[in-house]
């Protein structure tokens, strides 16, 4: 049999390792829901599109675009400026702000929306006080309306900017001081250096963060629904629940995915010609510049504002509510909620990271149209509302279930129930479909910094395959890997819609409990589980933030 065997080609297309094959298989399975949703485009949905087009579609489009634009424009400076300040400068509180800036990440968007509404709405304490103190009536005074499109933009930007901050900061940390110094010797002032050198170099990371922010914005349902802003997502649910057409709803989602895909491809094209790794082997640590007086104060305020509005104020409001209601909402089942949430978040975060690594490496080794497109599509789940993902997951799995059961019946006789539907397995699978983009983006942004010459150098020293990964890449990537792990962990903690529909019997999470109470407008009672989500998210946020800082020092 030896004569027919072609010579082994390492890394060539003729050689597909079992790992590559396994990755391809896992990737294909994870792509199923996205395909199922996209396939809906070919199904007939009657005259619903005519109706949507005639009545509400224009508004959905307009609001979704404005929302995405607004959140994008606001979260960019909120994320990038503090990242730049805490990385390159020292000022009072800068070390604490470094991790504190991540805290809003732990705050679910719909919860921050509820807290600000509770405080600032027409019936809230502030406006009630104003009316009582000045004997005003509604309409006698001007007050910004929280529950509006600008309000939704603000809420979402306040909790989503950490995606940009996190990735931008990692990128700034990884930038060599030499680049900045070279810029300085060429007569570029620090502020100019930021715009001309630091920012362009960090562009892959920043645009990866921005992509996440935009996708999360477009998939948001809780906030816009509560604020009465009719977007594509609320349209998906109104079409499904109100007009009774899950097909048209899936088609709307498919449209949304297509839109996001176009954005991503455009961005990738725009930066295709530039490469972002350093060519010099000298990677000196950037010495932060110490700021003084007014400048320091300004920097502090700039960095503290997002933390104050995105975390301290809403968390403080939650705490006030908890003090009023904890005795009735803290029951014996509460610990189980915490445990369920943490367990799901941890398992998913770990699996997502492993998958992302496998996918990114496969793509690196077998670069081409197929692997490229596949890894792009794998991230698409992030732009799709959780409920739609859940249905996209249920369709293939229940099909599989039925066929497994037919086979099972033939062997053991009839009577079995479903094997997959209603298990934790299917739930974690749905999370992976929804959140893989987070770990993919983090790993990808990290890998973009690993020069191909490092691989070559490693190989020439006889290090290849897994030991290349372990000995060369992982130390360099550590910050990015931790970032990916953290993002998925926190997002699973907050995840609601897919959990609601897919979870097993008698299985609740913190997000489910918070939602059920908040949805009944019992905000004060929802505060305890909401605060628990925030607390559960904070601990890993802090640990990982420190680890990311250290990882920079490790290879400087």
């Amino acid at each position, binding site marked *: 049999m030896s004569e027919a065997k072609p010579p082994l080609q390492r890394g060539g297309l003729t050689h597909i390792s079992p790992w590559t094959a396994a990755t391809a298989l896992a990737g294909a399975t994870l792509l199923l829901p996205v395909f199922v949703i996209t396939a809906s485009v070919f199904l007939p949905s009657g005259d619903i599109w005519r109706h949507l087009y*005639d009545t509400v579609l224009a508004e959905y489009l307009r609001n979704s675009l404005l929302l995405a634009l607004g959140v994008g424009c606001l979260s960019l400076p909120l994320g990038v400026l503090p990242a730049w300040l805490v990385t390159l400068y020292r000022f009072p509180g800068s070390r604490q702000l470094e991790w504190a800036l991540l805290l809003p990440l732990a705050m679910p968007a719909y919860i921050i929306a509820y807290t600000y509404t509770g405080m600032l709405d027409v019936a809230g304490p502030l406006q009630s006080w104003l009316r009582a103190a000045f004997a005003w009536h509604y309409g006698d005074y001007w007050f910004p309306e929280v529950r509006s499109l600008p309000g939704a933009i603000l809420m979402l930007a306040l909790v989503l900017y950490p995606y940009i901050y996190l990735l931008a900061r990692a990128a700034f940390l990884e930038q060599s001081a030499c680049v900045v110094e070279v810029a300085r010797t060429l007569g570029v002032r620090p502020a100019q250096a930021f715009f001309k050198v630091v920012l362009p170099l960090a562009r892959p990371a920043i645009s990866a963060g921005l992509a996440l922010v935009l996708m999360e914005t477009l998939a948001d349902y809780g906030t816009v629904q509560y604020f009465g802003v009719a977007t594509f997502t609320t349209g998906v649910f109104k079409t499904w*629940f109100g007009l009774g057409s*899950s097909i048209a709803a899936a088609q709307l989602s498919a449209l949304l995915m297509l839109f996001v895909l176009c954005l991503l491809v455009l961005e990738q094209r725009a930066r295709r010609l530039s490469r972002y790794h350093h060519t010099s082997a000298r990677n000196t640590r950037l010495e932060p510049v110490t700021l003084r007086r007014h400048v320091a104060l300004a920097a502090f305020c700039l960095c503290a504002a997002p933390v104050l509005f995105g975390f301290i104020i809403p968390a403080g409001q939650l705490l006030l509510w908890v003090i009023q209601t904890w005795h009735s909402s803290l029951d014996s089942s509460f610990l189980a909620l915490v445990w369920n949430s943490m367990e799901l978040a941890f398992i998913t975060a770990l699996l997502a990271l492993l998958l992302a690594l496998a996918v990114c490496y496969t793509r690196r080794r077998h670069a081409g149209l197929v692997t490229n497109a596949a890894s792009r599509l794998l991230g698409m789940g992030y732009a799709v509302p959780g409920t739609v993902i859940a249905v996209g997951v249920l369709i293939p799995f229940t099909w599989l279930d039925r066929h497994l059961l037919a086979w099972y019946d033939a062997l053991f006789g009839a009577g079995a129930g479903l094997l997959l*539907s209603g*298990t934790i397995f299917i739930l974690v699978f749905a999370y992976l479909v929804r959140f893989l983009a987070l770990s993919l983006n983090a790993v990808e942004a990290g890998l973009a910094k690993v020069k191909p010459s490092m691989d070559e150098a490693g190989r020439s020293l006889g290090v290849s395959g897994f030991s290349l990964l372990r000995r060369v890449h992982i130390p360099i990537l550590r910050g990015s890997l931790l970032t990916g792990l953290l993002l998925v962990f926190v997002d699973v903690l907050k995840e609601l819609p897919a959990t609601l529909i897919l979870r097993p*019997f008698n299985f609740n999470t913190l997000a489910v409990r918070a939602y059920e109470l908040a949805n009944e407008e019992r905000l004060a009672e929802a505060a305890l589980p909401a605060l628990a989500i925030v607390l559960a998210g904070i601990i890993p946020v802090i640990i990982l933030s420190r680890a990311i800082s250290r990882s920079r020092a490790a290879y400087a």
Partner: protein
Amino acid sequence: MKYLPLLFSLLLALPTAPAEQVNVYSGRKEALIKPLFDAFTQETGIRVNLVTGKADALIKRLELEGERSPADLLVTVDAGRLYRAQALGLLQPVSSAQLERTVPEVYRDPQGYWYGLSIRARVIVYAKEQVNPAQLSTYEALADPVWSGQLCVRSSANIYNQSLVAAMLVHHGQDATEQWLRGLVANFARAPKGGDRDQIKAVAAGQCRLALVNTYYLAGMLSSAIAAEVNAARQVALFWPNQMDRGAHVNISGAGVTRSAQHKDSAVRLLEYLVSVPAQEWYGKTNHEFPIRAGVAGGEILQSWCEFKADDLNLTVLGEKNQAAVRAMDRAGWK
């Protein structure tokens, strides 16, 4: 991979039917129904397994799981969803002398596909200090331009509004309903947002004078532990519309046995328990909904509201007309 062993053990455990239990998919929130299930378990020893969620999503799960779905009972908070599940072939008719005796005919499916468990009414609340109740009469009159800019109501995505409009479609037909909707939308004080409690608070704060809400939200605020909620609720009063003609619009929370039910008898027993006197009293006292069983008194707040006349439209039509209602609302510009 941690769950692989679990999966296998499940596989082995499947053929043996476990102890008596019943599996429930519930569109009703856990806090608003689980206490009843717990009481049922205590009384009968039958375990109740529960998944709560959005009714439409659960119906979709039921539909996709098909014949093998583990669910035995589908609980929703409106008749329209039960109708939809029935139309999709997901429910089966059950007959029980006790259910038929207790649940009035208009609040159940004629063939027994589903039964109402509690009654919820959609009414007008008004600012006590600014509105004289003599100015109020019917839902129809809310479209009168005298109320321009004074009405608060939540979004058209909300099922309670959809059901109300569906009922209007049945009573008045397409053209008159659409005309009414345009007038109603023109009277909105603000773009619809928030939930029913929000509308009550907006009336109390003076943003609008009238709101359309379900009664139990008002009762829930009146009995709240939070002072601000109670204060807001005290500034408004409830008005029962259409008492001189067909009566106030009502809907039900209800349940139906699924077609795939493997514990049908337990499911029927649970249904029977839910319309029993103690369960019905609980609905009245804790959830502030009107008991479906005649002769059961609600809590103090419910008793403080006078007897009212309810529209006796069979609720099945709310489901049939739901889609037409949403389309009409979209056309009228009800966000």
